[in-house]
């Protein structure tokens, strides 16, 4: 009895409150609108503030006297190899991570029993929660030495390809190891975005394919992958954004050679990346030289911005994401 009575009385009281308190509610509404608008403006101001700060701090780098930068003539010559290293390492990582992430996502959505898929989903998300410095330490102490025999084998058999040119660095601190570590780091975001778009493949498409006698692989090939393509690309771009800005893992794992532009991934001479170089060089650079680091930071800021913009564009076109 009591339970059936309570809801109506509740409703009435709320209605009463609403009727009586129309004015205060509207005031609260206004207040809340103000807070959220403020939050929105704040994020824009922060972004603008960062951009302004970077531009202002990096301007003096244009007037840096020659020879004040290590192994570079001017700010352009200093930034260019770093930008190359940043993009190069990120692209290798992306090429390593994307196929694996798609496979994981397909396994979770189409092959694994739902319980296992759920657990696996948690584990993959957990990978994203590991701090990058931990990945860096893991990379330098475990992954790099572990892969040295693989590098040795590839350099011995395929060393004529410039990519695999010897001499392999015996500690494994090279571009290949750095890219592998980043690949593990960007795996979760690509996998989870891919999983979401694969799940949203219209049931009808898949059933239609099956009705035509398609095997599970053919269903994936004809229905799931085409539907999810733009979503996967969007996820990969988000991963690329993270890879571009990755700092600690690269700072720890990569053996940097300032001023170098080279494609060999197994040797001890590797182009460094912008983010890692800022972290490593900041304590050494004083006064005006520091502006060069800010300038490279500005370049990275713009590059990441562009990548994210492209990612949003592609992801926005997708029906699933």
């Amino acid at each position: 009895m009591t339970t059936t009575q309570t809801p109506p009385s509740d409703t009435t009281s709320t209605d009463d409150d609403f009727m009586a308190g129309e004015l205060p509610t509207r005031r609260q509404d206004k207040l809340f609108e103000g807070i959220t608008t403020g939050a929105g403006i704040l994020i824009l101001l922060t972004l603008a503030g960062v951009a302004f700060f970077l531009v202002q701090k990096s301007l003096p780098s244009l007037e840096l006297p020659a020879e004040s930068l290590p192994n570079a003539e001017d700010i352009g010559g200093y930034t260019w190899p770093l930008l190359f290293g940043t993009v190069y390492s990120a692209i290798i990582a992306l090429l390593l991570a994307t196929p694996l992430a798609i496979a994981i996502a397909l396994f979770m959505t189409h092959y694994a029993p739902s319980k296992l898929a759920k657990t696996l989903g948690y584990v993959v998300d957990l990978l994203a929660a590991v701090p990058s410095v931990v990945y860096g330490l893991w990379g330098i102490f475990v992954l790099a030495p572990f892969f040295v025999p693989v590098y040795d084998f590839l350099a011995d058999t395929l060393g004529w390809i410039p990519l695999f040119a010897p001499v392999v660095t015996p500690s494994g601190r090279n571009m290949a190891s750095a890219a592998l570590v980043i690949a593990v780091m960007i795996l979760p975001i690509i996998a989870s975005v891919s999983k979401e778009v694969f799940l949203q493949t219209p049931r009808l498409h898949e059933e239609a394919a099956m009705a035509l006698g398609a095997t599970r692989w053919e269903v994936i090939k004809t229905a799931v992958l085409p539907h999810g393509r733009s979503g996967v690309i969007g996820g990969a771009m988000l991963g690329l954004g993270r890879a571009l800005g990755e700092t600690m893992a690269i700072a720890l794992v990569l053996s940097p050679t300032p001023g170098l532009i080279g494609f060999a991934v197994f040797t001890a001479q590797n182009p460094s990346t912008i983010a890692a170089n800022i972290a490593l060089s900041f304590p050494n650079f004083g006064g005006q030289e520091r502006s060069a680091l800010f300038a490279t930071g500005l370049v990275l800021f713009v590059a990441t911005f562009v990548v994210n913009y492209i990612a949003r564009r592609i992801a926005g076109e997708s029906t699933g994401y």
Partner: protein
Amino acid sequence: MRMSMRSRALTAITLSSALVLAGCGGDSSDGDTETDAAAEDSSASEEMTGSEEMTGSEDGLSVSGTLNGAGASSQAAAMQGWIAGFQEGNPDVTVNYDPVGSGGGRETFLSGGATFAGSDAYLDADELAASEDRCAGDGGAVDLPHYLSPVAVAFNLPDITTLNMDAATIAGIFAGDIANWNDDAIASTNPDVELPDLAINPVHRSDDSGTTENFTDYLTQAAGDAWGYDVIETWPTEAGGEGAQGTSGVVQAVAAGEGSIGYADASQVGDLGTVAVQVGEEFVEYSPEAAAKILEVSEQATDRPEGDFAFDLTRDTEEAGVYPIVLVSYHIVCKQYESQEEVDLVKAFMEYVQSEEGQQASAESAGSAPISQNLRDQMTPVVESIATAG
């Protein structure tokens, strides 16, 4: 950590993980434990003297206040030992040392932001002139070599703990010209060692470093044409090799890869094999004593103010028993300060640092080589003469 950061606090926080993990993680933890040990020792000796008045600086008075220094990170571990030891006797003093780097330290000192500077290089002529404005009176500042640290050339080869090399061989290895361990240049000075057929992987500091500067200074002076890159703080791109961040990074990289060789603060090389360097007719292993001898055979820089102890190290010396790859780091102090408080603090601290006890503290916390008694006797009057202007 007793080193407080001031204006660079934010930077320090942002980069602290980089520094702690990539830079001096191993150093500082070692330093801490040994500093504690040193602190216990000195407190024990105080208990034995049993009198309150005895605690304090050498003139018997305990000073108080805050002393700010900034400069070379090479001294950071030693500075922990010095600060801990000094504060044992002067509990009311806070000594802050900001390890911003040598150049940054000199800049901060000359602009008045620090009472003393730590620097791997002595003041150049321009900076000496600037120091006359910065310091009270017109005496300017002086350089005191308080920190001597042998730099070891360490390698990772199974079952080999020491190798003899001359300077030209070391230069050839680090320039990439000698690429295999069984090269004749190495074999000829090591007839009794069976050298493996293994590629040499030279490891260098990827960050700007006083260690690199001192190491390449040695190569430039002693190796002749074999080293073509001059004295440098930043490793040249063309010389190749593997780059690693900080002393601990180099040691880690060498330890991780068989066939690797690197140069690093001798106290940090651990179990790695080390190179005995040819000096004259013999091969000298690094040791604190052998390292301290370098100042005895080196000439003091010319055109320096009175009381200045800037040394141009003679690394191509042929004197027996001298280990030539040594990092010398200075403390830069004014001869005259504005206030009596500054004078008391600087004097007490510098007296402690160059005392036998202070040198022992840094030897324990940073593995440095204690300065010789002879040099101490020469520097003592200079430190004692620090005074207020007028």
